[in-house]
């Protein structure tokens, strides 16, 4: 069965490493915070100026002056810190943040990503996404393998305006875990019960399948 959004987040959480600073984008990436593996310490950075972001506040304790980049009310954990936007993006550009997880409309086999604009239909802006993808050491894209019409979003070349070039190295979709190298998608894991053929059929870009492809494991 294809993964739910929660399961995509859960699979990405397995990539987290001890003592990493991590920036989570809006949507599925935000859910990753719910599945941090035991024994792993992670500090979340929110690009509007918060390090050590905690869970949503207890009802009645929400503070208009404490939000995340998705404009949701949040809390700050003990040991957290607050800073301005220039400092925040110095952390990001200066590669002090070890991992960025973000959503995408399209990913291409050369590592290009598109996630901010559909010409003439949707223009919301890139927010911090262009800064994040241009600088992060590790970028994991969380996305659905196909769009609502069933068309592949895992492509040879992006058709939408780009957010960044040659930057994505790992993609976790509802069907598969993919690695991008040598201008191709390497199939690393399958969603439980999803066949290699199904993944192949949903992938427009070049898909490399080497040997037996294991299923993802969840605790």
């Amino acid at each position, binding site marked *: 069965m294809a993964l739910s959004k929660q399961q995509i987040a859960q699979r990405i959480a397995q990539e987290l490493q001890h003592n990493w600073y991590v920036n989570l984008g809006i949507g599925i990436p935000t859910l990753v915070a719910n599945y941090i593996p035991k024994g792993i310490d992670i500090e979340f950075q929110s690009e509007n100026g918060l390090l050590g972001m905690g869970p949503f506040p207890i009802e009645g304790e929400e503070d208009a002056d404490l939000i995340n980049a998705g404009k949701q009310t949040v809390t700050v954990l003990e040991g957290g810190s607050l800073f301005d936007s220039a400092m925040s*993006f110095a952390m990001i550009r200066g590669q002090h943040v070890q991992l960025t997880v973000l959503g995408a409309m399209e990913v291409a086999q050369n590592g290009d990503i598109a996630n901010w604009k559909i010409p003439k239909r949707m223009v*919301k802006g*890139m*927010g*911090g996404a262009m800064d994040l993808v241009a600088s992060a050491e590790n970028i994991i894209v969380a996305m659905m393998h196909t769009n609502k019409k069933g068309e592949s979003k895992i492509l040879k070349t992006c058709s939408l305006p780009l957010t960044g070039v040659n930057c994505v190295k790992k993609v976790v979709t509802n069907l598969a875990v993919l690695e991008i190298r040598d201008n191709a998608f390497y199939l690393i894991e399958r969603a439980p019960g999803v066949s290699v053929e199904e993944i192949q059929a949903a992938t427009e870009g070049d898909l490399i399948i080497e040997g037996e492809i294991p299923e993802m494991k969840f605790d």
Partner: protein
Amino acid sequence: MINKVVKNAHEALQGVEDGMTFMLGGFGLCGIPENCISELVELGAKDLTCISNNAGVDEFGLGLLLKKHQIKKMISSYVGENDEFERQMLSGELDVELIPQGTLAERCRATGAGIPAFFTPAGYGTEVAEGKETREFNGKMYVLEHAFESEFAFIKAWKGDTAGNLIFKGTARNFNPMMAMAGKITIVEVEELVEVGELDPNQIHTPGIFVQRIFQGTDYEKRIEQRTVTPKS
């Protein structure tokens, strides 16, 4: 100490004219200069260019200026929360320049820091870099981005003293400190205006040298865009 205090938003906005370029602090509705925006609506200044990370929502923040068609151009990183904005942009009434958020922050900082331009990797290979100089450093490509020019900067701080020293609260700091540095005239509204000596110099976020006018703000609404909570168990 140099006294920067003015009576209210009306007095603070002396000199504002049609066609000017402004910076306005805030991220979403967090840390926006509510009093100054209300006064801009009151004054009816038009053909404005506004540099602000977001464009408010339909009935609040910069949305109030958009509704009255006072803004000619917006320079922002994310504008997704405002239907009237989208309508004006798609119909061509409003000119919009979208900039990566970190680039926007650094351009504001550069403006106030005497740096005319800088290289950043953000946007390389995308339409943001079109027509801009690019250069390779240590095997990686960067885009040349320039400082802004802004006649006024409108800033919201938590506490400030009569000399213009500022302290921000929570994530309401965001773009405010860089924009405070960047305005030719920087106007600050505060929740709590205190006498000099009452703020600890060790705790100041923005030194008063960047501030020209400061006033005690009133009637803060501080709207929350996305009220997310953990239910009481």
